């Protein structure tokens, strides 16, 4: 039992190396519950396409300050998200399963600057961040398969040389 606990803890630590990746549900839910994430994903994909966030042209306009659209989308998303998080914290809102909502704190490391710049380059080149990549593929831009495949290679390569990089 002791041994098993230790293993679980290490697993959580490794996953936590990635600041996003810290979703530890305390209660176990049946596997079909994952379908709700599928439903949210479908909704997210539709929004990303109808708002043209997946458009290479919109991304170029954003970085050339030729259109307010992308700034409006991201800005208003953050405002609504921040108000929601504030309300969740202020009124101590629980999940539908009655669980305490966990909002992970992020710590600073150099990767946010160096990796951030690298992603910025890739974003302007491909016209897509990871979410839109999957939406672009569904949209019918089959060549996005190459971009997604290379993004996987990039992620894998980061894992390979992670310990040699400044953090």
């Amino acid at each position, binding site marked *: 039992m002791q041994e098993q606990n230790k293993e679980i803890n290490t697993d959580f630590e490794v996953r936590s190396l990635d600041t996003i990746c810290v979703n530890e549900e305390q209660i176990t839910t049946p596997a079909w519950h994952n379908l709700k994430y599928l439903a949210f994903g*479908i909704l997210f994909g539709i929004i990303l396409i109808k708002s043209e966030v997946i458009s290479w042209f919109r991304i170029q306009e954003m970085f050339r300050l030729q259109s307010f659209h992308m700034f409006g989308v991201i800005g208003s998303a953050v405002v609504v998200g921040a108000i929601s998080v504030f309300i969740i914290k202020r009124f101590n809102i629980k999940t539908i399963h009655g669980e305490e909502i966990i909002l992970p704190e992020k710590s600073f490391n150099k990767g946010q600057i160096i*990796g951030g710049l690298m992603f910025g380059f890739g974003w302007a080149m491909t016209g897509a961040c990871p979410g839109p990549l999957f939406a672009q593929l569904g949209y019918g831009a089959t060549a996005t398969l190459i971009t997604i495949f290379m993004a996987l290679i990039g992620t894998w390569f980061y894992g390979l040389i992670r310990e040699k990089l400044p953090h």
Partner: protein
Amino acid sequence: MSMIELIRQPWPWYVAGPLIGLMVPALLIFGNKSLGISSSLRHVCAACIPAGISFFNYDWKKEIWNLFFVFGVFLGGIITVYYLKNDAAVVVNPGLMQELSTYGINDYSSLVPIELFNFGALFTLRGFILMVVGGFLVGFGTRYAGGCTSGHAIMGLSNLQLPSLIATISFMVGGFIMANLILPLILSL
């Protein structure tokens, strides 16, 4: 104009932005999940090619919700094409159109410029750099930064995380440098 016709039009930012923002509380309340997309790439690596690398040595099945979410985004794309697509050409800033025409980009039928992103273009220097190098940078950069536009810019900023603000500013600076200074050179190739 009927409701369905209205939905088929491109959505203005003040409709789409708040809807994207609402994904944050939706995922938190329905399952205690923080919005994030780029982690899915890591989970695929962990599931398919861990290769003994410690960064991929974890139980990816615990994060499987993220793969369902991402598959949903893909399905959302298909649904949009079949039921919610408008056939009008993409409206683009005239200044940008003029600049792009000098690089031989004149097709506005798709949100993803067909002249740049197709399998044949992979064998041109320009296409290779945009798809292969660009894709690599998206994967490497987001993981090194610990998140992408959704994880840092939307979720992190909503939770008022300073590291996410630093990351978001870096994304934007990188994008500005690439789009204005480097991309014109790549497109000229």
